[in-house]
């Protein structure tokens, strides 16, 4: 984690980490975990819904695009609960992607495409989203939601 994150760490974090083979059948389980942990941090119902959706979209991407549905490849999800925020890491064994290669879901030529909205939704509902290609291989997505900034579906801040 970078210096900016380190200096904001007040109190202590509770961590929960799970790892599973790349199967879409785990989506509901991960989303339920997200809902429970978001509740413990203190997020309201709307925020919990959008955090859960963001986690679901991120894990779907990891399973589907990162690990290409190869059940031998693992997806890791780590929840860090801080007194003032929730940080979620989603890791896969894929090669990652360039953010600039992700089409803008709002461009008129993309409006009627059947796919390409997942990451857009995550960026809309979470306060911070970043990606990292890991030195040991794989890709990790980090997303953060702050308790005092429960934006709920306005989707304009990126």
């Amino acid at each position, binding site marked *: 984690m970078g210096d900016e994150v380190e200096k904001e760490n007040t109190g202590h974090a509770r961590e929960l980490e799970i790892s599973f083979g790349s199967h879409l059948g785990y989506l*509901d389980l991960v989303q339920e975990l997200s809902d429970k942990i978001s509740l413990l941090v203190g997020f309201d119902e709307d925020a919990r819904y959008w955090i859960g959706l963001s986690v679901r979209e991120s894990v*779907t991407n990891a399973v589907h695009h990162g690990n290409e549905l190869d059940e031998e490849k693992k997806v890791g999800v780590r929840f860090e609960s801080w007194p003032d925020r929730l940080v979620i890491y989603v890791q896969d064994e894929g090669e990652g992607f360039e953010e600039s290669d992700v089409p803008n879901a709002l461009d008129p030529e993309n*409006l*009627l495409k*059947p796919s390409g909205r997942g990451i857009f939704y995550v960026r809309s509902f979470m306060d911070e989203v970043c990606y990292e290609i890991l030195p040991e291989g794989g890709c990790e997505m980090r997303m953060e939601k702050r308790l005092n900034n429960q934006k709920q579906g306005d*989707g304009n801040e990126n």
Partner: protein
Amino acid sequence: MKIESRSVNGVTILDIHGKITMGEGSRGIRDKVRESLDGGVKNILLNLGDVSYIDSAGIGELVSSFTTVTNQGGQLKLLKLTEKLEQLLAITKLTTVFDFFDDEAEAVGSFS
């Protein structure tokens, strides 16, 4: 996800129940839409009032169904959006694409 099909005044209404997500196999909607088109009914109303959850794959399924119907010269409209679904559509500007209604009779009457 469960889909029931009925016909009202020449409009196929698909009542969709449950989750429309990647994990649930969201393609069912497209298949039902194709069945209606193959049967010669090109005006289709998707009743989403009993949809408990939808993700980006589900939104993609709605879009895909819309383009399929439009390309065949038909119309696909939406009925009874939940608050969350309307937010997801609005964020991605899809409320400018879809016609949507709260009242079934009004929706059925809107097809030209």
